[in-house]
């Protein structure tokens, strides 16, 4: 017998006495009332992870990005990035080459208010996963209308076929005496720009 057949047979033997009927899963947890101001809550909670969060108008994006990365930074942009920001568009560099960039600027698929989370599904404007991982600073732009209330709303809106990265603050560890240190392997600095409608 193959390992597959043997494991499946062992599973069936183990369950011989078990109730065949399935329990009803109550989804009442999805019915929580949304927060009164999801965008304000997102800003507050993302900042608690020590991300730098600002709300701004679309017209201010280039200036805010330029100020955040500094004049000498080598800035990487994903293909399809929709805002007029100075930087070099990714053409599929190797990871070692990505390591030469100081910062990357991207959009996001959505943001979650109650947890202060950004979700990237790595479509146009967000880039392949390595782009937002190797450079030490990540600037992420999210429109106010992309902020959803909570985790169930986010999971329902996202497409599982796409690779996803859920980001809640900069990379962090508490492995040494439980002292929180920002930035181990992922970007050590995370800027979030929430763009309010004009």
């Amino acid at each position, binding site marked *: 017998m193959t390992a597959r057949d043997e494991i499946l047979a062992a599973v069936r033997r183990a369950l011989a006495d*078990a109730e065949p009927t399935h329990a009803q899963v109550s989804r009442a947890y999805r019915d929580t009332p949304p927060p009164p101001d999801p965008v304000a809550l997102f800003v507050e909670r993302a900042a608690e992870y020590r991300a730098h969060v600002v709300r701004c108008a679309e017209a201010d994006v280039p200036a805010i990005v330029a100020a955040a990365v500094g004049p000498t930074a080598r800035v990487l942009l994903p293909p399809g990035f929709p805002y007029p920001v100075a930087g070099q568009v990714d053409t599929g560099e190797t990871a070692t080459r990505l390591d030469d960039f100081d910062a990357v600027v991207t959009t996001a698929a959505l943001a979650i208010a109650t947890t202060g989370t950004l979700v990237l599904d790595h479509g146009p404007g967000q880039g392949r996963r390595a782009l937002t991982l190797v450079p030490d600073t990540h600037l992420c732009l999210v429109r106010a209308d992309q902020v959803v209330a909570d985790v169930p709303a986010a999971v329902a809106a996202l497409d599982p076929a796409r690779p996803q990265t859920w980001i809640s603050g900069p990379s962090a560890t508490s492995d040494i005496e439980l002292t929180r240190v920002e930035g181990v392997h992922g970007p050590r600095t995370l800027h979030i720009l929430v763009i309010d409608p004009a």
Partner: protein
Amino acid sequence: MSGTFLGMPPFPVAARAALADTQLRHNLAHATGTIRAKRADVVAEVDNWEELRVAGAAIKDNALRSLDATLLRLEKSLQDNGVTVHWARDAAEACSIVAAVALSHGVDEVVKVKSMATQEIGLNEALAEHGVAAWETDLAELIVQLGDDLPSHILVPAIHRNRAEIREVFRDRMAGAGKAAPDGLSDEPADLAAAARAHLREKFLRAKVAVSGANFAVAETGTLVVVESEGNGRMCLTLPEVLVSVVGIEKVVPTWTDLDVFFQLLPRSSTGERMNPYTSTWSGVAPGDGPREMHVVLLDNGRTRVLADEVGRQTLRCIRCSACLNVCPVYERTGGHAYGSVYPGPIGAILNPLMKGVGDDAQTDSLPYASTLCGACFEVCPVRIDIPEVLVHLRSRVVDAHRPGPPSAEALAMRAAGWVFGRARRLGAVERAAGLLSRALRGRRSLRWLPWPGSLWTGARDLPVPPRRAFRRLRSERR
């Protein structure tokens, strides 16, 4: 990791050594206390926490109840996504599958994401035998690996080490494994983390093959999920060309939307955060993004044995959050090593005997007794595993496994207690006798020593002096 849990002494022996280590006890009390408080805060702000726990338990139960069909669905979805699926009956089989993949790409090293399953099967040692070095990339795992040490906590495996010890490990050992620690390395956590970043970045950028586990595997979509903090997981899942994920068969959940429960339960229970810094999900190979070749090893290694145990099968719901460790009064005092397994604490006390079976090994058989049955673990468990119920069940199985033969002192004591508690009149008589004893011991609050066989109990514990009047007597007097 050259350390091994094999041949560990039974829990009481190992625990006695750990109890004598005051530094360890101090670190543990600080760590568990801190995480416990953070968890309590972020759980309290979720109004529907109990609904989430009930849903989490039900989703896992449903997946387990039809595990054969759920696994076949998962296999099909993975294959449709371009993933090669392997099945492994035991640790040796799983290790040789991973080794074969690594060797087929001609590599002599792999980078690893922290994963309980790969620790359980001893993958690093097995790969070393094939001449393949497995680099741990989680900071705590790196500390453990470089120090030839053993992990002591699921979430913070190096919790038994302080910053000065970690600096020593980095200074002495990093050079032998790759990029050396910088000169003048301080013992500031930020400096130590920066040294780890530099040391590992070199490995991430050149690695061809990565090995991961998965926190969840979605049957419907063939999606795997890794939940982490540092970004080392993202590095391993994204930069190498080949990815092998070792996934316990109990990690499967039926649908993508079921994750909306676990993405709430896990981070809050585990690190006490509203959300962990990074969660990665992927459904097979994504063109132009990440690894081009993917393998999944579906691992049994004792899990079907757990499934066959009517009371114990709820243990397979476990999402390895480690909340039960942080509330356990026994774990807080003994630490993880005393459990002699990669799964310590209350979950380890039930999972190890269930996976390995009882009656063969004194170390495993001692684990169901490593508990006071206080029930704190059940209270915090996000998937409502009734750990005390399983512990009691396993104790009876251990006792049964050792029959025939003279009953043990504990079996006799329990039998005597059963006889006393079984009849109100007998209990009353014992309580009156205890009250008299209490008067004789005027002023003492606890007994540090009892004559044999009571010494078996007081050897490691103080016994409170019985009250002068029993609760039952007071109650009947006040009626």
